[in-house]
């Protein structure tokens, strides 16, 4: 019993002295370091239209009428004859570049006074407006040709055929678009944002989420435009005069 007790005492002493031997004393000094970039950053974009055929500078977005089938009965998406080269820099957390239409501000021939109804019940004034129609529902009045855009990190071929269902294409929105109850603005920033702090916005996931366009180098990306043609008749002229590209920061 004594031996066991002695052993325990010895062990206890060993633990005590070993803990003494290796006990570490720390003196800690804490300093705050900071970088205040609250007022730093920029939101910038250049947007240059070019002709798909020869990369020459363009001033308007057009569609080749011979490529459109008249009275087709089904919607067919056609690529515009122009594309845009964009260089953007968004380095501010709240910064973004938005793009949307303002068809109510078109001249009299192409002003949109009546919206069309989307599948989800929302009211849209976006797209190309048929001359003299004032817009309205597509059936019968043929008031609108819906517009879409898609972005690419690299330049696409001049024969690119517009794909609206790829998941990366987005419909144009109009600043006067309304919610399904017709009450308030339906401008959804997820759908109108073409660049933000994450770079160019490639598409939308769900109703609000956006995802970045991968593979972008030198802050340059390319935008292509699609028109959804259906029931077009000879003599129809469609046009929009107001596509707004604006920078935003708080």
């Amino acid at each position, binding site marked *: 019993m004594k031996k066991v007790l002695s052993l325990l005492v010895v062990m206890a002493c060993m633990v005590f002295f070993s803990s003494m*031997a*290796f*006990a*570490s*004393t*720390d*003196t*800690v*000094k*804490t*300093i*705050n*370091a*900071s*970088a*205040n*970039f*609250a*007022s*730093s*950053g*920029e939101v910038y974009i250049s947007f240059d239209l070019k002709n798909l055929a020869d990369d020459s500078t363009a001033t308007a977005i057009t569609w080749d009428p011979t490529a459109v089938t008249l009275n087709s009965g089904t919607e067919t998406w056609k690529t515009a004859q122009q594309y845009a080269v964009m260089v953007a820099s968004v*380095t*501010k*957390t*709240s*910064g973004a570049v938005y793009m949307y239409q303002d068809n109510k501000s078109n001249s009299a021939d192409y002003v949109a006074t009546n919206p069309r109804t989307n599948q989800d019940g929302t009211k849209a004034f976006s797209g190309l407006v048929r001359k003299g129609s004032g817009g309205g529902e597509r059936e019968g009045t043929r008031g609108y040709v819906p517009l879409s855009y898609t972005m690419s990190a690299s330049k696409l071929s001049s024969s690119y055929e517009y794909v609206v269902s790829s998941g990366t294409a987005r419909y144009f929105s109009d600043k006067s678009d309304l919610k399904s109850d017709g009450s308030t603005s339906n401008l959804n920033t997820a759908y109108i944002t073409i660049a933000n*702090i994450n770079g160019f916005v490639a598409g939308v996931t769900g109703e609000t989420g956006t995802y970045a366009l991968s593979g972008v180098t030198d802050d340059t990306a390319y935008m292509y435009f699609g028109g959804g043609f259906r029931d077009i008749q000879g003599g129809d002229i469609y046009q929009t005069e107001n596509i707004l590209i604006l920078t935003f*920061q*708080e």
Partner: protein
Amino acid sequence: MIQNIKIIFSFFCVCLFVMLFADNLVADNLSDKHVYGLFSENFNGATQEAGTVDDNIKLNIWANGDSLPIVSTTTTPASAKEGNIYYSCTVVGSTATDSYSGFCYTFITGSSTTVTRNISAFSMLEFYIRPKTGDVSAISVGITEGPISSPTDRTVTLSSLGVDNSSHAWQKCTVDLTSFSSADLTNIKNCFLVNTTKQTATFDLDSIVLKRSSIGEFNVAVKNISDNLETSSVTWSSSSFRNSWIAAEQYLELSLDILETDNWTVRIYTDNGDSSKDGLVDTTDGSNVLQMCWRVSQNTLPNANGDTLLITQSGAPNYALYDSGKSATDPSYYTWFYITDIATGDVTDYSLLWDSRGYHISVGGDFGGMSNPIYPKVYLGANCADAIGGLIYSANVRVVLSYE
């Protein structure tokens, strides 16, 4: 009247400048420090033949019959106990009657005038010895008490201090000054004394210090690079935005006056709560981190030796950080260390800032000893290339002195 005020103000400014400039040159470390370095590359103290009023000592060597001792400095960092330099000593005794030799540190003023000084605040004389050849056991060490005209040596033998002559490793010696019961420590001529009598031996000495019984302090001051004035925090200017590695506008100045054991380290970390947050973290949601780095130097930077504070990063695979203009391939020039968060622990030496080997010069494993005044400067850098406008980034930087 205005003219007089101008003259008085100018005189005041000149006096202030002189006081600031002269502060380090005439610093009375003997009355300030708890650890007073006599031959130390980590602790402030005396300077040999510096011509200053207070902390001025001189190495004196003598012999009678014995050969004159050879006491020379050797610069071999890997072999030194502390820093880069140690003393290599050779004493050769003779058989002549009353032969002796020795060497000491003598307090002086001006270029060589011997004085006595008050070391009564100190209770210990500590040093390291490494016996090499011969027998050091009977060699005595201690101090010399005044008056100058009739000095008295107060010594003990190395064997009484426990020195193992057969061991050729560094051995710590502590001379208890209070054991010299009748000595007047207020009137000391030689603050470190080695006496030999007919002994023949070679040995090394390093890290010779006087120590008080009370514990000193470890302090970290924040100072502006621009004017060296003390401030409260480390900042990066807004012009750092979207630039890659940029040095902060301030540096940390360390002051170490503690030597409880020889196993001490000073380390630097961020303390941001997660190993991944090893840098400046945005204060909005903590999802954006700007990597940080640090380097330490004995003197203020930038300097004329190419320590530019212009941080450059090499490519793969090292991604080493060095001052612009220095070698991108030689690790001895990688003076900047990526900072680690305290949550990561000490898995690498990237947190090690200073220990008995001196300040951590480079990733290549180089350490540097220092000379008076010893206040290492720590510079911080951050990679602001991916900084986001509208955000404020912040980090808790911890400097930790640990000793066992």
